[in-house]
Structure formats: C-alpha cells, structure tokens
C-alpha cells in the first residue's frame, strides 16, 4: 500500500531500507498495540474494537482536512498548526469513542462470563466499521500529502522527514506513557488494578475511574497514530482498523500482552518483519497478512506469554 522509497534496488542497501520502513511502520503498530495491552492488562479483555476506534480517527481527520479544502503540501506555521489540530482531533475522537464504548458495551458485562464482553467487542467493531463504510463508502479515499516530501540520504538508505517525525513523536508518546504509568497517581492506580483489582479497590483505588482512564489513554495513542498513518499511507479505508488492529494485537501478544514494554518491542519487531517479508518473499504483499497471522499462531502456541510477559498460568 505504501510507496517504498527505494534508492538502491539491490543488496544490503535495500535490506536497510526495508528496516527503515519497518521501523516507521513499527512505531505506529507499537502505539496501537499499547492500547490493546493496557486494556488487557487491566480488565483482561481483548478490545476488539480498538483498531476500528483508530480507523474512526483516520476517517474524521480526513473529513476535517477535506472540509478545510486542503489538497496539497503545507509548510511553516501552517503545517505545524495543521498537524497540531489533526492530532488534537484524532486524539479526541479516539479517546472519546473508546471511553464511550467502555461505558456502554463493556462495563455492564464486567461480571458476565468471559466470552460475553469479547462478543460485545466484536459487535462494536462491526458497528464502527460499517458505520464508517456507510459514511465514506467502501473504497479507498486519498488523504492529501500535507507533509512536505524530502529527507536524508545516508548511504543508500533514504530517510524521509515524515518518517523521522513519526518515529520521534511516537517515541515521545511512549516515554510520556511510561512516565504516566510510573510516576502519577493514576498510573499507580492502573498498576495496582492490573495486579489485583480487588485488593486495589480495598486500598481505595477507584476502579471504574482507573478503567476509564486506561481506555482514554489507549484511545489517545490510537488517535495520534491515526494522524501518522494518514500522513504515511495516504489512504483512508473503513477496514484499515481491522487489518492494522490485528497486526497491532499480534505485536502486543509477541511482546507479552499486558506488558507495556513488550507492546513497544513487539510493534517494532512486527513492523520490521512485515516489511522484510513483503520485500523478500515472492508475492510477499498478498501473503503479508497471512504471515502476520502465522507469527501470531506460532507465538500463542509455543510461547503464549510472549517475549517479555511473565504471566503464563490461566487465571480462571
């Protein structure tokens, strides 16, 4: 889907170019994976709708850009202002949706059998996808390339400014999340709830508020990613969230679901694996989704705790 920026079409240069592409993709996967892993860590639910929450931010930010009549590249203050506006809108849409979904669909089912909230999540995902399809149609819509082209050339590897922007901002967001979880009271409440909700509640942690906050944070990360994704891929589609959500979920599982560092590691790894697979496996693009699924199945079968996860035993 995304246009490969090939400076050198052979040998080691191409390999490093694919790694560079993979890192940029991986930064986005990691941010979405964090949303899965945070929610799973707290309430042990695979928030199936998370990818579609992300997709809604891509759709709404596209609508904003179109409404403002922007079709080409921006520079200077206009670019900075536009990026800030889009990030704000993306974050508000995704975090708002995520919190609303928690309130409407998941909270009433918190005490229900395990599969009930998962089925509800699948239903919500279905609703979000098809509502977006109803609104924007079922074909790809182009997102204008508002970010200027150009980039650095290091040897035979080309690094676009956009890639740098995405990776740097993603890393800033990850560090910010890490600070929130480690240093703030809400972060402490999140960690306590993840360990043992009952004990946390007995210690005076407001469980409902902590869960809402978790959904808010996960949604906000997905909303920011949606803007990066629009700038990078330049295509808006109602099933984007389904595809990217599964990849990000795989990343979260690879890293060890429930583990924040694991989600970041898994995101980057999956990004690199996917871009290398697309390049080096014959007709790799058609197979790339199947490859990601195969990775997911293999991890779940041979190391369900993931690379960094510790919790192996099933909590009944």
């Amino acid at each position, binding site marked *: 889907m995304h246009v490969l920026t090939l400076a050198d079409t052979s040998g080691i240069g191409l390999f490093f170019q694919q790694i560079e592409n993979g890192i940029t993709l991986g930064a986005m996967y990691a941010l979405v994976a964090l949303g899965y892993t945070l929610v799973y860590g707290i309430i*042990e*639910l*695979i928030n199936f709708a998370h990818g579609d929450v992300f997709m809604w931010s891509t759709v709404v930010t596209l609508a904003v850009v179109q409404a403002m009549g922007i079709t080409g590249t921006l520079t200077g203050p206009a670019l900075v202002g536009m990026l800030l506006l889009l990030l704000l809108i993306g974050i508000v849409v995704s975090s708002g949706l995520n919190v609303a979904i928690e309130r409407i*669909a998941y*909270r*009433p*089912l*918190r*005490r*229900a*059998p*395990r*599969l*009930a909230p*998962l*089925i*509800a999540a*699948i*239903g*919500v*995902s*279905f*609703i*979000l*996808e*098809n*509502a977006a*399809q*109803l609104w924007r149609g*079922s074909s790809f819509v182009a997102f204008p390339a508002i970010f200027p082209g150009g980039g650095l050339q290091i040897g035979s590897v080309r690094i676009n400014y956009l890639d740098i922007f995405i990776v740097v901002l993603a890393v800033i967001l990850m560090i910010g999340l890490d600070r929130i979880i480690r240093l703030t009271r809400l972060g402490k409440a999140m960690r306590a709830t993840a360990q043992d*909700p*009952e004990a946390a*509640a*007995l210690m005076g*942690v*407001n*469980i*409902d508020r902590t869960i809402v906050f978790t959904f808010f944070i996960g949604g906000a990360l997905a909303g920011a990613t949606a803007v990066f994704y629009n700038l990078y891929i330049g295509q808006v589609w109602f099933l984007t969230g*389904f595809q990217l959500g*599964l990849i990000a*979920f795989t990343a979260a*599982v690879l890293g060890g679901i429930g583990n924040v560092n694991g989600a970041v590691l898994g995101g980057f790894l999956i990004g690199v694996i996917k871009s290398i697979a697309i390049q080096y496996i014959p*007709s790799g693009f*058609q*197979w790339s*989704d*199947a490859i990601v*699924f*195969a990775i*997911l*199945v293999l991890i*779940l*079968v041979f190391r*369900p705790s993931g690379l960094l996860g510790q919790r192996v035993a*099933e909590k*009944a």
Partner: protein
Amino acid sequence: MSLPTTKQRQPWRKFMQTQVSSALDTTKIAGRPLRWFLSGWRVGIIWLIVAAAVPWVLDTSLQVTAITIGIYVMLALGLNIVVGYAGLLDLGYVAFFVIGAYTMAAGSFGFIQMANGDTVAVPDFPFWILLPAGAILAGFFGVLLGAPTLRLRGDYLAIVTLGFGEIVPIVFNNVPFFYGPVGISSQPPSNIGPISFGDPSFPAPFYYLTLTLVVLIILGVISLRESSLGRAWVAIREDETAASTSGVNLVSTKLLAFGLGATVGGIGGVMNAAFTTSITPKDFSFNISITILIMVVLGGIGSVPGVIVGAILLRFFDVYLLGQVNDFIHGSPLVADSGAPLHVLAGIDFNTSKYLLYGLILVAMILLRPQGLIPDRRRTRELHGQGVSSETLSSVGTVEREEVGEEVEGIGAEDVTTYTGAGSDAQGREG
C-alpha cells in the same frame, strides 16, 4: 465421565422429557409461550411438515431463499456445537465453510490450473462422494487447527481462529491451483434417475436434499447434547478446572467439539458450492463468520431451536427481506425523485449497510438478552450467574457457582466455586 444410567442411554426420551417438561414449566422461564410454541418434539414435527411443504406453496425465488436458509441453519448448528455446547469462541468458522466449498468445487470441476496458467484435467468426483469428503476434510482441518491451539485460554483461541479464518481464503486467493481470485465453478449433484438437482427453474429436489441434511444434523446435534460427550462439553464450559478434576479429558473433549463443528461447517460449504455452482475466495469473508455467530447469539447460545430460528430469521432478512425493503424505500415517491423530502435515503444502499444492523443486533443481544430469543435453560442460568439447581442436573456432576462477598466499587468479588457433588462423577470418585 459417569456411567450412563438407563435414562441417559436413551437420549431421545431424555430430550422429549426435558423439552416437554420445560414447555409445561409455568413458573420459571420468561417468554414461555414462545418457547412452548417453538420447541419440543411435537412442534418439531409440525415444523418439519411446514418445511416439507415449502416447494408446494412458495414460488421458485423463495425456494431458492429457503435453500440458502437451510445451508445457514447447518452452519449455525455447527458453530453452536463449538460456541454453545463447549463454550469455545470460534471467530473463523468461515474457514471450514470455505474448505467444504472448495472440496466440492475443485473436486467436481475436473480441471486444475498450474502456476504457468495451463489447465490440467484431473478426475472429477460426484457430489455424493464429495459431500462426505468435504465434511471429513473440514473436520480434519478443525482438529489440525484445534490440536495446538485448544490449550490456549478462550479469548486467545478466538483470535487464533479468526486468523485461521482469514488465512484460508488468502491461501485460496493466492494459489493458482484453484484459479486464485477468479474462483472456480462447481457441478451440481448428479441426477438420481429422473431427479435433477441442477435445474435452476425447479429447485425442489435440491431443497429436499438440503432439508434432509438439516434434519439429520438437527437429530445429530440433539443426540450429541444429551450424550456423555455433550455433558462433558457443558462441564468444561461451566468450569474447566472442575471438569478436568472430575476426569474430563479437556484436550480430546474440546478437539471433538472443534472437529464436529468443523465437519458440519464443511457440509454447509459443500452444499453451498453445489448450489451456487461458482465460488470465489471473496465469498468467504470474516463477515460470514460473524454473521453465523450472530445467528447463534440471536437465537440463543446453546439452544438448538433457538439457533435454528436465529439462522432462519437472519438469513431470510438478508437474502429476501432486505432487498425488498431496499427496493421499497428506493422506489417510494418520498425518496425516488430528486426533490423528494427523503431523497437522501436514495444514496444509501441498504444491502451493504446490513452489517451495521447486525453489529447492533449482536451488541444489543449480548447486553440485554444474552440468553437469546429461545434460551437454553441451563445457559440462561449460567449467564445470569445463578447456581444450577441439582434437580435439573441429576445426571451431571456439576459445579455450583456462588457469589460470595460484597461488591467493592463495581468490581465483584471473585466467584467462589464449590462442589455440590450432585452428580455421579463426584460421588463416584468419593466412593
């Protein structure tokens, strides 16, 4: 599991007794009149007569609709074995549907395509061989998928099955052998004497073929539910640890659920290919897996009459009612003219937005009526967190869940499980 008592050796009698007694139960179940009307063996016979009359009273297009409904009833019953009986969420059920369909199509087409584009003639097999072959092959893949994954916890299993459901159509899409995205045509079942199954203007024979298979599958799944295997499924659904300590072999029990569910899905796939006589990988999307799941949830997870009704309602809506509604709205004078007040609706194709409605149905059902339209009694109690009374379960070693402790800030105390020792299992082990 337990030594079967006389009662258990006669699943039919058991079924009739429970169904009839539940139909006459005047106190407990909400929506009782509907339940009485729709379940029980007498009503089953009435339904069968109604179903058998379809080709005599309905026109050809409705008969075609009835055939596709029948295929989806099979699929929903098959998924119900996995989701309803054994409590394993399978989000990739379409994989078995597609395997059955491709078995039928590739097996009867007579040609395969090599990587360089050449077609090569291969033997073609009749439907009557491919039907069991597709069922067995799908069951085989069910076991193959289940073997490494069934020790995963429930929600992981859901994702792995989803992945499988996505991979299988991708494989068919990318393998030239089966003509890739172009798809492949299938032959209708060969004639039996003067009876032709492939005549589009006279679908009655195919309809009766479908009906026969549906009836066989219904009898099969009811017998399964009442068998010791069925009770083992219920046991692992309610509490895996307790079931395992009572001597239920978790892996083989789950594998059987998966394999049998997949087998039924394969039969549905063969029938679908034989009926539509042309399939492409695009026909088998994630949406179908979810649609079948919605049929199960709508009708009542674990409830055979419920699942049948769920499949009929949703499929009838899908292939018949929705088109009518769409045409009606688009043809209405309020919408059709460009100046009409509701002209905005003209741009909406209700056929493509149906999944939005399906999603709403799924969420609404799981939130408001998780037991479905025609509930399975036992499942209802599980969903409402009530203990299952020992009298209804006199033959099953069961685990009673009790809520102990107070609510603390919205998070309930962990369920405390205690043995009631109601069944022969627990007692047998103690003695």
